[in-house]
């Protein structure tokens, strides 16, 4: 394992110290329990938005704390859900009196820890709503399993809900928007290589030199299918078709197309992927009216990408365009 870290067990905490040292002007980092809040929190009268999850997906979530996006992020150990006390303390630190929205990715651990946090927060008289994101079409949705995983749509939901909160929309409305984003977004990813968890010290899964994992999860969870290495054209076709057919997206739809790098894939390749995606969607009468290209929800050093499509209407488009000022996503300010 080759990583720019010291002891594996210290990597998350030391990265947080780095964030604290780098961005004291925009965020405050609290250690024990670990959370990151925007420097001006709590913002009076604004719904506070809190998210979190295992570390290893940077810039998500810590890099999305700031004006127009998250009020707080709770980083767990690498690929391990954070604990309720983190979420509770973070929620308390950012509650501006208008309630708190928890945006939760659909993994058993995340869901349960956030649930406990909400119970604790409600016991203390806080108003908390939770929305679970589950946009990964690689996993079959079913009442009898853990259900679809939460991936790329999380980034879009955090941005859009953050914008609505800045406009002082009430908690129920912001939570409703979050559900709307989730309902209109679908994703799928592909791994060219495995990630390596620092504490594990070796690749999470073994992939042949000529193999890819279609439908991989952001923790290296298995996907739909192991395949022979293919061209960008064929890989995009497989991912995009699965995504488009699931919602389904149809002719006349306007979408935000999000091409996400998994951490070890350079931008050059993401633009090749975007070019292919653009062509495929055009062929299906779907027009991309907004896009996001880069490594925003990563899986440590995994090579690969994911494609997320979000069906846009005027409301979502306007909220996407609204100013945001975080270290990971910034415009309009």
């Amino acid at each position, binding site marked *: 394992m080759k990583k720019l870290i010291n002891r594996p067990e210290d990597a998350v905490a030391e990265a947080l110290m780095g964030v604290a040292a780098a961005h004291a002007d925009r965020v405050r980092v609290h250690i024990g*329990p670990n959370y990151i809040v925007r420097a001006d929190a709590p913002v009076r009268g604004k719904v506070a938005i809190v998210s979190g999850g*295992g570390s290893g997906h940077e810039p998500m979530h810590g890099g999305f704390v700031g004006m127009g996006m998250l009020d707080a992020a709770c980083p*767990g*150990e690498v*690929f*391990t*859900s*954070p*604990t*309720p*006390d983190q979420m509770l303390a973070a929620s308390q630190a950012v509650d501006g009196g208008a309630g708190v929205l928890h945006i939760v990715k659909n*993994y*058993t*651990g995340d869901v*349960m*820890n956030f*649930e*406990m946090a909400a119970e604790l927060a409600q016991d203390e008289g806080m108003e908390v709503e939770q929305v679970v994101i589950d946009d990964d079409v690689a*996993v*079959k949705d079913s009442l*009898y*399993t*853990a259900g679809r*995983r939460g991936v790329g749509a999380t980034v879009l939901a955090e941005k859009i809900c953050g914008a609505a909160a800045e406009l002082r929309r009430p908690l129920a409305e912001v939570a409703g928007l979050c559900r709307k984003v989730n309902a209109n977004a679908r994703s799928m990813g592909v791994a060219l290589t495995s990630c390596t*968890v620092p*504490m*594990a010290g070796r690749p*999470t899964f073994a992939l042949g030199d000529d193999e890819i994992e279609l439908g991989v*999860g952001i*923790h*290296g*969870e*298995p996907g739909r299918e192991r395949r022979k290495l293919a061209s960008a054209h064929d890989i995009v076709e497989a991912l995009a078709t699965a995504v488009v057919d699931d919602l389904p997206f149809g002719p006349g739809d306007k979408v935000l197309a999000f091409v996400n790098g998994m951490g070890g894939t350079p931008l050059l390749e993401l633009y090749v992927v975007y070019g292919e995606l653009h062509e495929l969607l055009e062929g299906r009468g779907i027009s991309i009216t907004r896009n996001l290209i880069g490594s925003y929800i990563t899986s440590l050093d995994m090579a690969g990408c994911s494609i997320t499509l979000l069906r846009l209407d005027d409301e979502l488009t306007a909220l996407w365009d609204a100013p945001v000022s975080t270290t990971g996503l910034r415009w309009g300010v």
Partner: protein
Amino acid sequence: MSGIVTQEGVAAWLRAFAEAVAKNREYLTELDAAIGDADHGSNMDRGMQAVVGRIDGPSAGTAGGGVGALLKLVGMTLVSTVGGAAGPLYGTFFLQVGKAAGEATELTLAQWAAALEAGVKGVQMRGKAVLEDKTMVDTLMPAAQALSAAAASGAGLAEALRQAAAAAEQGMKATIPLIARKGRASYLGERSAGHQDPGATSSWLLLQTAAETLAAGAPAEVPGA
């Protein structure tokens, strides 16, 4: 009376469980690597080390409040140090056992069995798993039921705990052929069959160490009495 659960017995049990988890850390992680994300051993070890640190730490004992308070402290500690799926599940388990145990410093077998049943209910409430979903419930539920049944049949504490541990072992092994329907392993679908569930395995350690420690402070039993 053929044995009572004491606060010292519970503390001894927690220490023994922590030790068993530490010893089986790599094994639990290996089981999790096969159908999960290879962290169950380190998660549980981190949590139980913290638990031992608290119950044996400088501020230990000052709290008072009987078995219930002790177990609530354990539950809170696990909730705030483990994370993932196991943190809320084991945390809820101990919180609910502690709630049922109340302020007493000693519990009869029947009271203890009822407390365990409450713990299992807590796990199911939290995780929504039923039998045969291939989770820790497959170990905990039959074990709690065996304990209650033994209590109802008038068995002594040591014997009842042995029966519970045996039921736990059986439940754990029964997870091997199952297809996971809850937790991370469910993403594997049919590929999860053929592997023993890691959480069911750590739960077996919990029941096994109970059998070894919880009745230790109690007067020796006359077999068949």
